[in-house]
């Protein structure tokens, strides 16, 4: 170890691996993964979200899963929780839509209204 900068570089790399265990306020993306969700294709959506988060090296974003969100006919459902924002519920998701949500909503902060439950209903 030669310098603080070198240590910091290792730290930044390593943080990504343990980030999930730290207490902090960040974005949570939750995928409904009950039987209905999985049957409607939630797993590829989840994988797409994970890949995109990893690809863009997004800190402070957690992708997790939950049970049935309740509107089975609109599955796969993805919910986005951001600090100081109302929860946004996206419905009838596909891997492509999921990637777009990461780009528009998570990165640029623009909700894609046409995918939300309000627009579809």
């Amino acid at each position, binding site marked *: *170890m*030669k*310098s*603080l900068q070198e*240590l910091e570089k*290792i*730290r930044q*790399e*390593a*943080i*990504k*691996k*343990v980030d*999930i*265990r730290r*207490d902090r306020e960040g974005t*949570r993306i939750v*995928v*409904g*993964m*009950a*039987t209905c969700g*999985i049957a409607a294709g939630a797993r590829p959506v*989840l994988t797409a979200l*994970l890949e995109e*988060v*990893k690809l863009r090296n997004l800190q402070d974003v*957690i*992708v*997790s*899963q*939950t*049970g049935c969100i309740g509107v089975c006919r609109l599955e796969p459902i993805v919910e986005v929780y951001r600090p100081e924002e109302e929860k946004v519920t996206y419905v009838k998701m596909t891997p492509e839509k999921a990637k777009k949500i990461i780009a528009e909503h998570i990165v640029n902060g623009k909700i894609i209204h046409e995918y939300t439950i309000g627009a579809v209903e």
Partner: protein
Amino acid sequence: MEFYRAHVLICGGTGCTSSGSQTLIDTFHEELEKNHLNKEVKIVKTGCFGLCEAGPIVIVYPEGAFYSHVKIEDVKRITEEHLLKGRIVKDLLFKEAVEEDQIRSINEVDFYKKQKRVALKNCGVINPEDIKEYIAFDGYKALGKVLTEMSREEVIDTIKKSGLRGRGGGGFPTGMKWEFTYKAKGDQKYVACNADEGDPGAFMDRSVLEGDPHAIIEAMAIAGYAVGANQGYVYVRAEYPIAVHRLQIAIDQAREYGLLGKNIFDKGFDFDVEIRLGAGAFVCGEETALLNSIEGKRGMPRPRPPFPANAGLWQKPTLLNNVETYANIPKIILNGADWFSSMGTEKSKGTKVFALGGKINNTGLVEIPMGTTLREVIYEIGGGIPNGKKFKAVQTGGPSGGCITADHLDTPIDYDNLISLGSMMGSGGMIVMDEDNCMVDIARFFLDFTVDESCGKCPPCRIGTKRMLEILNKITSGKGEMEDIDKLEQLAKNIKASALCGLGQTAPNPVLSTLRYFRHEYEAHVKEKRCPAGVCRELLAYTIDPEICKKCGICASKCPADCITGVKGKEVFKIDTDKCIKCGNCMEVCPFKAISKK
């Protein structure tokens, strides 16, 4: 780099390992593989989470779901329900002993709410066998900071200002110890770490080494820089194989990353650490005996002064601190002296780790700010006394400490308060006793330990404690006389005043403190030949209550001494006390609870 959406943390501390956590880890790997989750979910083997009572413990992040008493057959359910479908397996979650509600997340557990984890901060959070995880949680940043930004005097000053006192038992101000070693003359100096931890009931040092070994290495390197030493030794007992194993891995990794070795942080500072194994002798926790043992000599203490700061290992100036003391150092450097001294009481700063054991619901490790009351620790964190029994006393400080009664439960815990109550902080063992514990027997237990562990160098300890034990045996077997109590007290005071080292000087403490608060129990043993708690076997008498006895004869059939007589179905059964060997079999088998011991 792999990206994982969930982390499964499984406790790999000694406690959970012995209740089977390694098999759990293997099973988790198999189940994840089966469900194609091995690229999404990461298994991390950590150090102790603290709540050993509930082990093996599994925590799933990001939810922080806290599963306790996890069995092999539960792994499948956690994998398929929680990890695959995202449904937390509620019936496997940790339940508070006092309430019915299940606790979902680790942040909601009462056991952790009142705690403040500084020394144990990383324990149960990081993978101790991966230096990168330690670095991710700000590891080695403090070492970098002192080497690049601080002078040796500034480091010592920070430790002094923080108010940190030795966590191994003595409570000596750590900064002053550092300063003495820094000022000592000598071209060769050493830094040593006391990881001997021999107190019955204490295991916080083991847990730190198992859960966060790099913290000790980093702290020793900081100390080495401050006092001017280039070599460190960790003296750890061989009974701690997991701790030794992980410490060795950590040392190797630190060398590989250039955090030990030559020219660290390019500042011309060389430092290395080696492990020295002890054979598990209590006296080797005493500093001068420990240093002798590192040198390869017999672990016996020598008179002080000279203190190790001036003449330690091979007569060179040596800084010796305990594991928990070192664990605080990197945090003090990073967060500042004021941060540390804002916690605790006026004369005892920071936090202290206690090993809760005995008659308490949540057995395990707790770290609390100094000044927390004993009541908060025992009832709020410890979850109270099991089976509705009454609290009687708490023994702190191991064999060198003493017992504290219910009258003192509201005392804020710090070095000075515990000493004024006739006990001490010690390394932080905290053994809770209920109404079924006999205090004379407890004193006898601890003295039995010290007699065994006395190194024999000085007569007060070698002969004196042996005589005390003989008197205690006499009392607990019902042969004691009133003058024995006086003799015991006199002996205790004399040994305290004349023994060579800390082990001998404090050995009489359990006797003195029980005499102080529970003299009536000693007197009951001597005058009435009675053990009020029903522990001392030779003073017990088993009797059958004729009102309750249903004449079934089960007791008689199970009596190995043939001392119970009666006629099945016709006549109440009776115990012949003279023949009775007091094994307690009859009481255990009686379906009607008709038998009692007094």
